[in-house]
Each structure stands twice: as structure tokens, then as C-alpha cells.
């Protein structure tokens, strides 16, 4: 079946590099996710605002971020930013920005759904108790909305991890970057890509399992609190 001699020893030689490449991917995913969740909350507040001057741009922003392929957006951020501004981004920062900005479009929709899912009676009750609109949002509506946002938020995290797999195309030194280098130098594409692929799938499965745990934990909290 195999027309060339397998060199698994090359994989063994590069275990350290593969692991640190994986850590870079996890860092990009985590930072991108944090950016997406923070930015998404800000845009979601604008998206649910009463003023059309806030709602319009917020809607346009989410449509744009969700309609452009992340793969293309990565190139736009990395090469485009260097062309139109004096700022030269490192591949790592460009990857975090692309993931975070694209992710924020999805995070906005998650927050919006969650904010709208909170019973309006909660807000009215908060007003009736004399809370200001800001207080009612911060202390009553937001905590409940965040709880609702957790399961779809975890799905977004898994999606961002999958999206982070191709950041090597702009030169981030991740597992696939290393695989390419090693394959080009010693010709072991099957071995290197098999191992890096399995590493990614293992992490994805762990994260998906973790997501299920978090969802269960939040479901339990919901029952005790109500």
C-alpha cells in the first residue's frame, strides 16, 4: 500500500515541536475566544438598543463578520492591515484578531438570543423595585443572559479551535507549519500530518467533552436557583 518507507522516527524527534505548536494553537484559540466574547457583548448591547443609529451599524457588523470566510479574513487582516496602515502585525496577533473579530459576529448573535430569552418580567420587576435601567441590566438581566449563553458559547469555542487550525497559512509556527517544514526537508508528509491531525482531533474531542460537562454544570445550577 505504501510506496515509501515510513519514518515514524521523524515524528518522535519532533514531539517537542509538535506539542509547542499545539500550545500556540490553543493560545490563539483562547485569546481569540476572549476577544470574541468581550467584543460580542458590546456589539450585542448596541444590537438590542432602542436607537436605530446603534442597531444599524451593529447589524451590519455582525452580517459582515459572519458572511466572510474566516480563511479569507485571516489574509485580509494580516496582509491588508500592513498595506493600509503603518502597523505591521505579527502572524500570531493577526490570527488572534481574525479569530476574535469573526467570532465576535457569532458571539453577538449568541448574546442577543440570550438577552431576548430573559423573561421581560425580570426587568420590569427590577424597575418596580426601584433599580435604574443600568442596574437592572447589570444585576438582573445580564447574569441570567450569560447563563443562557454558555452552551452556544462553548460551541463557538469549539468552532474557533477548528478555525485556528489553518493559521499556519499566514506563517504562525503551529503543528502544521512544523509538519510542512519537516516534510519538505525529510519527506515524511504522511507521518507528520497524521500525527498533527490526530493531535487536533484529540483536543477537539476533549473540548467538546468539556463543553458537555459545563452545560451539565450550568443546567444543575439552573435547577437549584429556580
Amino acid at each position, binding site marked *: *500500500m*505504501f*510506496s*515509501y518507507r*515510513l519514518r515514524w522516527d521523524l515524528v518522535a524527534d519532533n514531539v517537542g515541536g509538535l506539542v509547542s505548536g499545539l500550545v500556540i494553537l490553543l493560545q490563539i484559540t483562547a485569546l481569540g475566544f476572549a476577544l470574541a466574547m468581550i467584543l460580542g457583548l458590546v456589539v450585542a448591547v448596541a444590537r438590542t438598543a432602542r436607537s436605530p443609529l446603534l442597531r444599524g451599524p451593529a447589524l451590519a457588523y455582525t*452580517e*459582515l463578520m*459572519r*458572511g*466572510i*470566510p*474566516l*480563511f*479569507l*479574513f485571516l*489574509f*485580509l487582516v494580516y*496582509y*491588508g492591515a*500592513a*498595506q*493600509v*496602515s503603518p502597523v505591521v502585525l505579527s502572524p500570531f496577533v493577526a490570527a488572534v484578531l481574525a*479569530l476574535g473579530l*469573526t*467570532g465576535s*459576529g*457569532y458571539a453577538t*448573535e*449568541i448574546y442577543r*438570543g440570550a438577552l431576548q430569552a430573559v423573561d421581560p418580567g425580570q426587568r420590569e420587576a427590577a424597575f418596580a423595585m426601584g433599580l435604574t435601567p443600568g442596574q437592572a441590566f447589570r444585576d438582573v438581566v445580564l447574569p441570567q443572559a450569560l447563563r443562557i449563553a454558555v452552551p*452556544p458559547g462553548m460551541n*463557538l469555542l469549539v*468552532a*474557533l479551535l*477548528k*478555525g*485556528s*487550525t*489553518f493559521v499556519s*497559512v499566514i506563517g504562525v509556527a503551529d503543528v*502544521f507549519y512544523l509538519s510542512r517544514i519537516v*516534510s519538505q526537508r525529510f519527506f515524511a*508528509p*504522511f507521518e*507528520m*500530518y*497524521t500525527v*498533527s*491531525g490526530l493531535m*487536533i*482531533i484529540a483536543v*477537539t*474531542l476533549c473540548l*467538546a467533552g468539556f463543553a458537555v460537562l459545563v452545560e451539565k454544570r450550568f443546567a444543575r445550577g439552573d435547577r437549584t436557583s429556580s
Partner: protein
Amino acid sequence: MNLDFGVVFSSFDVMLRAFRISIVVALAGFAIALVAGAGLALCRRSRLRPVRLLAFAYVNFFRGAALYVLIIWLWLGLAVATGIRIGTLSAGILTLALLNSAYLAEVFRAGIDAVDGGQKEAALAMGLAPGQAFRAVVAPQALRISLPATGNHLVDAIKDSAILSVIGIPELMRETARLAQFEQRPFEFYVVAAGMYLAAVYAASALFRFLERRLDLDRPAGRWSRGRPVRSTEPGGGRVQPVGTALGRG
């Protein structure tokens, strides 16, 4: 910052040709996935345990795999190791089909499960054979329920097709990257390409919203006069979202 979109428009015909390849690849992969996904959904409901287990394993493996990882492994790993040579175009279509069939299998399965059990019982009570009951009563309703989610996956397949540029298919992303580098105008080229993807994505979601209205037999076409549309628990309320629900699914 001096932008020059004139350069982009002088190679616009090249980009349009590449855009057509993107759409053909995405649609071909998705069409295969529709058939395979329906088959897989049926396998997951099979009476034979091994068939169920195999379908379960297939669906969960490919829903967990990232498209980039899969295409790189198939193209650079497996194909090189085994000496199998297939064209980039077929490899791209095949990979999209593999992934989307797993997603669609779940969509169709959920659609079948969402049909009221009483429908099947009523069909059997009226003397239909189990196969007839499924074909004539359950499947059409399941298909209608599955429509919005199917539309979202088509939108994602179009966006995912950009990843296929890594194996060298001369589709929109690939050609844009080549031109951007050659003309030293990355910003302009990527912005125009982004606009093309947005147009395709909006066309796909408009098509599915149209289908959804047409197939909504409870109501006169084009109007929402009686009652409210059924909403699923999915984000977006089970309607086709203009730009899909998943990101970097691949």
C-alpha cells in the same frame, strides 16, 4: 493609505472565473452530501446494530474533524503515501461531501425525530405499509423541518470552499491570493473577494428562505397570515440565517 481598486477591476474577469469554480465545487460537494446525508440518517435509524454504529462513528468523526486538517491529511498525507493520484478538484469536492454529509445526517435525523409520532401511527392505522408511511407521510414533513438548517450548512459550505485553496484548486481564494501578491494590493483584492463571498452567501440564504415559504403548506405562499412560524431551539430560531450558524466549521 492610497487605495487603488482599478487594479482589481482590470483582473475582474479572472476573479469571476475563479468565483464560478468556487460555487461549482461548493454546490457539487453539497449535492453529494445531501444524498449521502439522507442515506446516513436512515442508517442511523436502521434495525441492524452494526449499521447504526458505523453511521454513528462516521457522523461523529467527520463532525469533529476540521476541513483544513482533513484536506491536508488526504492530499499531502494519504495520497502521497499510497501513491493514489486524484485531481485537486475531485479531492476538494470529496472532502466537502465527506464533511457535509455528516452534518446533514444530523440535520435530517433531527428532522425525522421532530415529526409528531402520531403522524406515523395515523398513517399505519390508515393501512399504509411502514415503508409507505415513511415515504409519503413522515419524510416530506421531516424534509420541511430540516430546510432551515440545511440552508445554513449550504452557506457554510460556500464559505468553507475558500479553505480548498490550500491544495491548489484555482478557486476564488487561491486566485485572489495570487493576484494580491502579484499586484502588491492585498487589501483591495481581498475586500472585493469578500464581497463576492457575501453575495453568494446571501443568494444561498435567499433561495432557502424562498423554498421554506413555498413548502410551508399550512399557509398561503408568501404570507404569514395564520399563526407564527414554528421555531426550533436552535440559535436563530430555526430560520435560515443570512450567513449560517457555524464558523470555521471546517
